[in-house]
């Protein structure tokens, strides 16, 4: 079986690996968007955004823990958003911008550990980083600054839980499973 070696440079193999995962994520996003749409067509749209956000953010930290490279989270998330925009997005240009912002949030988390911890601690920081950075972005981009403070606090907590589960706990479980196979060293 093939294994992945970790070094700083981006090899052809790394790029194809992340791009294939990004396309799988494109399919998964499409499935999620049905649930999202049911809520998003109502005034509950901000709740829909924050409840499902974790799924949209997963690709970044997953790329990070699999490749363990500086920049892997940003590149992984950017690839997933580029695939999404090219294949089936209803968000148009904002898909790429949000992908970049989300990737930066995760990347900051891993950077906080000096890129040394790619497990529980790194993922915890990455989830917190992504929650804070994307929330600040949405204050402007999605107009959250116009909502009342009470709603903002509720949304922030929902977002933290969603990102914490999908981009934190679930990614950690996936990493543990993958580690058991011994394919990624």
């Amino acid at each position, binding site marked *: *079986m*093939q294994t*992945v070696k970790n070094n700083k440079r*981006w*090899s*052809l*193999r*790394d*790029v*194809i*690996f992340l*791009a*294939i*995962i*990004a*396309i*799988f994520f494109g*399919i*998964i996003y499409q*499935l*999620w968007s049905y649930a999202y*749409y049911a*809520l*998003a*067509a*109502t*005034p*509950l*749209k*901000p709740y*829909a955004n924050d409840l499902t956000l974790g799924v949209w953010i997963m690709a970044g930290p997953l790329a990070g823990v*699999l490749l363990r490279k500086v920049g892997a989270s940003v590149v992984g998330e950017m*690839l997933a958003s580029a695939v999404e*925009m*090219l294949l089936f997005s*209803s*968000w*148009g*240009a*904002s898909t*790429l*911008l949000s992908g970049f912002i989300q990737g930066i949030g995760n990347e900051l988390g891993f950077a906080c550990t000096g890129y040394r911890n790619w497990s529980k601690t790194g993922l915890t920081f990455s989830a917190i980083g992504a929650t804070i950075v994307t929330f600040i*972005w949405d204050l*402007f*981009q*999605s*107009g959250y600054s*116009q*909502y*009342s403070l009470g*709603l903002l606090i509720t949304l922030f907590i929902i977002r933290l839980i969603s990102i914490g*589960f*999908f981009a934190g706990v*679930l990614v950690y479980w*996936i990493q*543990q*499973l*993958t580690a058991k*196979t011994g*394919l990624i060293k």
Partner: protein
Amino acid sequence: MPKKKHLLNTAVMTVIMLGIGLPLSFSLSVKLNLLICLLAIFYLIACRVSFKTAIIVLLVAFPLALGSWWSFLVFGTGDRWHTAWIYGTRVYAYLLLGMTVTMTTSVKELLFSLEEHLHLSATFVYGLLAAFNLLGRIKQEYRQIQYSALIRGQVYHLWQPGLYLRIILTALNWSGDLAEAMTSQGFSEGEPRTQMQHDPLPVWQWGLAVILILSYCWAAFIIRPW
């Protein structure tokens, strides 16, 4: 599939899309949002994109625009109507900006154009191209992963790590095979490549991009129309 037509160079359109998309996130103007939509629609008509596809894409986004608009009427503070219209129309401004790129060019053309004019590395260009060519097989594989779980009496839900493990294993195997195949066909990472196709880009198009982006920022942050 018929070849998609574009009037401006793909790399320039990408720069315009991101160059206007970023300040758009901070601008608070309904009129400018509508202006962007209008200009993008004119460009799409000029490029003769498929009318039917465009209508479908625009209709699919309607619930999102409605949800944004409505949520500010219910939860907004301050001038609710103005805010509602800003964020409702913004959904379409983003979407139409994106469509000026995605509906007028193919993935292959876009990647080659970004390589030639914005110096995206060949490893990324050809790696992405290789993966995109697998699109049909990846969709098939996703179904197969679900079916093979069903045979064992399991259902993979989107919150179960097992599903993602299968995806990662597939990606590992395929990316290894593809990268080896490409290397054995003469692809060398980081080496200069012979350009077989030339993607023309007259200098005036860069000028147009700069003028469009700067005048948008000027209008959005200095004039600030309603």
